[in-house]
């Protein structure tokens, strides 16, 4: 269970988060939707502890992430598996080394006797890329990079999986492959998945719950059906993808 309470964050004069409140239930997939610049990525970085808020708290399984010292944070972060927007694969390492990275780091603190190669193989098979362990990230297509990033995130068996705009920049078919993959890897009741996206097709397909972020606040949360039938003009404009409405994005 992740509980976000009254989270505020500014960068200089730019108030990005203006009091975010959100409960993310364990074992479910929660999608945070919002336009570009609505603060989705900043919110994401607070959940995992990469950014410290100006005010408010993020509680993960009863631990306030924001109050932890740097060294304590490294102990908690093992629960998370994160899939970055561009993959963020380590480009000096092969695909296999990338997938093994999390397990190797985890082993320094214990868990001896894991067959790392077997885990790498299994993780890559899970994302449908069994033959690429020897390649470098630069040799992969955009969709393959995302899938390897998912394999790398699941290899260390996290209880919370986070996806940062997983379908952005992909063709519709590859986007759907990624959607299916997210459903597959988060099917276990042990896994809490959090996805940020502005791709409504993806959001409808993968989510148990959708939260709408607008101008630094969560303005509505609900199931897919509830969001589809939202009465809020702002939410309607966003999910229907209309330029005209209360959200003004001017052509300057």
């Amino acid at each position, binding site marked *: 269970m992740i509980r976000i309470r009254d989270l505020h964050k500014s960068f200089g004069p730019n108030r990005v988060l203006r009091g975010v409140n959100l409960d993310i239930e364990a074992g479910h997939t929660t999608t945070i939707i919002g336009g570009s610049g609505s603060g989705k990525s900043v919110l994401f970085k607070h959940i995992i502890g990469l950014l410290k808020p100006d005010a408010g708290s993020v509680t993960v399984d009863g631990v306030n992430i924001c109050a932890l010292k*740097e060294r304590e944070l490294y102990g908690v972060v093992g629960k998370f*598996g994160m899939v*970055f927007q561009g993959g963020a694969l380590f480009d000096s390492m092969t695909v296999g080394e990338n997938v093994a990275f999390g397990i190797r780091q985890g082993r320094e603190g214990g868990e001896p006797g894991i067959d790392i190669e077997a885990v790498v193989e299994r993780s890559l098979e899970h994302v449908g890329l069994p033959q690429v362990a020897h390649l470098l990230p630069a040799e992969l297509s955009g969709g393959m990079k995302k899938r390897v990033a998912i394999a790398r995130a699941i290899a260390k068996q996290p209880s919370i999986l986070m996806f940062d705009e997983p379908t952005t920049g992909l063709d519709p078919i590859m986007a759907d492959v990624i959607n299916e993959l997210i459903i597959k890897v988060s099917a276990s009741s042990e896994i809490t998945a959090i996805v940020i996206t502005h791709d409504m097709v993806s959001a409808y397909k993968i989510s148990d719950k959708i939260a709408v972020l607008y101008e630094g606040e969560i303005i509505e949360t609900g199931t897919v059906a509830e969001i589809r039938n939202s009465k809020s003009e702002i939410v309607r404009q966003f999910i229907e993808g209309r330029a005209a409405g209360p959200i003004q994005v001017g052509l300057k």
Partner: protein
Amino acid sequence: MPTSAPGRFVLGFARHSGGIFLLAVKAFAMAFRRPLRLRLVVSHLYLDGIKSIPVIFLMSVFTGGVLALQSFYGLQRFGAEVFTGSLVGVSLTKELIPVLTGLMLAGRVSASYSAEIGTMAVTEQVDALFTFGVNPVQYLVSPRLAALLLMAPLLTLFGDFVGIMGGKVVATLVVNQNPNLFDSQLFRSLEIWDVLSGIIKSVFFGGAVAIVGSYFGLQTEGGARGVGRATTTAVVTASVIILVSDFFWSKILPFSLR
């Protein structure tokens, strides 16, 4: 926030000076914390140290050569050309080789650190390290610092030797000085403290190159342009730190002004 150019410069200078100092302290402390990243240290010793040998060799041999050439003709005006070996030995080991080795490392290594870490920062690879419970400073900066703290003095010692050899070759083959005279003057005036003061400085220069390169890499924002800017800033800053601090080191080190 001051918007005037001098105001921004002063604020930026204070912020970066503090940031570089804090990173140096953190990276040094973390170098001794488990897990020790020995494999990474060895890889940087090779990539940034051993592979710098050719350029240090070239720089040293020609610096020693031109110094011998100019010293010989300069000293000849006073009938003092016999002291060519002394001048070459002392100048090279105390000042020229440590500073030029530092500048070479600033150009070659500081640039590569800031570009590599900067690219990692803008493609979220640094954030990705964090999500695996790996401290980016310990993983990226400490091994680089350890490698250069070790390699800079070794390269300087190597450069001292090569530079003096270059000087001797020019003194004997180009201006036809007796090689025994060169050697005898060299060993009569060159003291262990001359070499040592250069070596001590070079440890600091190596550390500055590693930290400054890594610092501007970690600060990188804004894609390819940001990486280019970080690289330029790192090389200029490391070079300036080397040139300015060299003066103060020479003044501070008790045996450097003898």
